[in-house]
């Protein structure tokens, strides 16, 4: 195959777009795992819920995309808080496996309910007027919406990283994961902080769902096809590492994009091949400690 530079540039850019979804989702997972020690398998379903809530807002309440960007994270955070208070809270003292089973089961239930109600073909969600169209970059046509997704996701990822790694609030959070009883002794309400953190992680998934709604189909399976890849991203980046998951998300998006160009048949497996190699060479992940 002859390699044309413009085509390659196009693939790189597309890789970056997909990478921004991986980054956004794996960030939520990393935050939740880092602070709660819960492997949140419901993440894909929560991403799907985000897209569906956006669809409901548009079709039942007449509230468009921009409202969805604001309201969906709030709704999803509330949903997350509810799950944490009612279910996850009871599992912290047990093995990781229990949290994984609970969240996995929850994901299956949610997907089942939505498949039953809406079918698997999914529902269309139209792009907001302002973000339709695109730019001709010479080597490719870049849809405005995709450009917006890259920028928005970068801002959110870096913002989250900044809050957790560089602010006082973030330092409380990090301290609480190291030694909750000591932090509690300083007068910080640790259980509430953990609840809110889970809510925040879920809100990130919901937000990614809103970003995805106009591009993909709003369908019950949209999360399950993505979640496995996102888990691989988190494993490669190193469980619980915030910056690690962001960088790996974007990086793997690009590698996947290149695979789609050079050997498309392998594009759905390349990430797992990398995961296997990383686990053999550096089991804690590229950016993980320990």
């Amino acid at each position, binding site marked *: 195959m002859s390699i044309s530079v413009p085509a390659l540039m196009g693939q790189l850019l597309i890789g970056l777009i997909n990478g921004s979804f991986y980054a956004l989702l794996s960030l939520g997972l990393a935050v939740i795992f880092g602070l709660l020690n819960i492997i949140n398998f419901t993440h894909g379903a929560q991403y799907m819920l985000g897209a569906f809530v956006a669809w409901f807002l548009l079709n039942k309440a007449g509230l468009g995309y921009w409202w969805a960007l604001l309201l969906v994270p709030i709704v999803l955070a509330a949903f997350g808080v509810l799950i944490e208070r009612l279910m996850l809270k009871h599992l912290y003292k047990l093995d990781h496996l229990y949290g994984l089973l609970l969240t996995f089961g929850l994901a299956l239930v949610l997907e089942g309910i939505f498949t039953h109600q809406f079918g698997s073909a999914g529902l269309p969600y139209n792009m907001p007027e302002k973000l339709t169209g695109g730019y001709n970059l010479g080597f490719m046509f870049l849809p405005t919406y995709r450009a917006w997704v890259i920028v928005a996701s970068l801002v959110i990822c870096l913002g989250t990283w900044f809050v957790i790694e560089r602010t006082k609030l973030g330092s409380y959070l990090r301290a609480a994961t190291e030694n909750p009883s000591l932090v509690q002794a300083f007068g910080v309400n640790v259980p509430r902080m953990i609840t809110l953190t889970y809510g925040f992680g879920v809100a990130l998934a919901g937000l990614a769902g809103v970003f995805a709604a106009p591009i993909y189909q709003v369908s019950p*399976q949209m999360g399950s096809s993505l979640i496995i890849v996102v888990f691989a991203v988190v494993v490669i980046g190193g469980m619980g590492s915030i910056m690690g998951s962001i960088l790996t998300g974007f990086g793997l998006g690009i590698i996947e994009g290149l695979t789609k*160009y050079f050997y498309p048949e392998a594009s759905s497996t390349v990430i797992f091949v990398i995961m296997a190699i990383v686990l053999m060479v550096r089991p804690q992940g590229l950016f993980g400690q320990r």
Partner: protein
Amino acid sequence: MKLKRKLLAAFAVAALAAGTAQAQISGNEVKIGVLSDMSSLYADIGGPGSVVAAKMAVEDFKKAHHPKFKIEVVGGDHLNKPDVGSQIARKWYDAEGVDAIFDTPNSGVALAVSQVTKEKNKAFIGSGPGSSDLTGSKCSPNTIHWVYDTWMLANGTGTAVVKHGGNSWFFITADYAFGHALERDTTKAVEKAGGKVLGSVKVPLNTQDFSSFLLQAQASKAKIIGLANAGGDTINSIKQAAEFGIVKGGQNLAGLLVFISDIHGIGLEKAQGLILTANFYWDLNDKTRAWSKRWSKEMNGRMPTMVHAGVYSSVLEYLTAVQALNSDDGGKVIAQMKKKPFNDPLFGKSHVREDGRNIHDAYLFQVKTPAESKGPYDYYKVLATIPGEEAFRPLHDGGCSLVK
């Protein structure tokens, strides 16, 4: 202890005797297995709707023919994996007394199930799969291919598009048996009509993001981008093609296998004008309308695809043959179904050929514009009717060993 053993032996003998004395329908029960994708990208094409269709057929058959045997319908989810599909088929045939398997979208799974069915001398009637190999090089005396196939789609849509000036093609192909067969058959149809194929890209099944492949198709400068995929894959490729300005850039899409559920998912805004080939549309005539409305009531107001209609009509025809023979021997029932033409309530005049191909009319549809459509599911207008004899591959071209 001894007494117990003796009693058991007596029971066994009695059971055996009863078995031979009874009619040839095993257990006096016909068990229908609907094997489908119940939860993933093809679940709206077949899936739970196919189970509903099968149950409707059983209900109607009982009302009209008052059979002496019992009929039961079971459903199974093959997860689009040939190994899972053939495992379920084996379990159904060996342990659960299933006599015939219906539906089964996903050609990869269907080819595997067809193989198992032949081994066990049961019956397999596929409405869901596409690959024309089912009645070609891989045909079987125990298999009938009931609704569409890749040759029909290629010939219907491919030829029509080339006639309208779309003479250079690039394929985006689902990377498994169905996609490969569809690309192969369409390539032949396009070349026969005077067009040429510039290239293709093979995409893993159930892909979310097609932008990368669309970009490659764009770079090929082909006039037509042929979508040799189905279900969720087709929806995503059409939606994203609109986003990347493919149609505005002068290239056109040809959806080679498009179901009404896909159009519903894409929305008319983006799907309008699309040309497609199918054997069934709910709004064709009074019979199809009446049946579809019945189905729709059970399915949250959705409308049936040609696969659902096919499951209904194939179960009905299968049961008719079982009753006529008073036997559920798979090979014999399939042979019986091939004997004479019949009037299908949903597909009109039909007959099953010796290679297992069910022959009935196909239609060339075009998707309406939002202005033309009167509401949800009012999506197609008929461009042309393709008579059954022209719609499907000529009997001797398929290379089926059953054809003398």
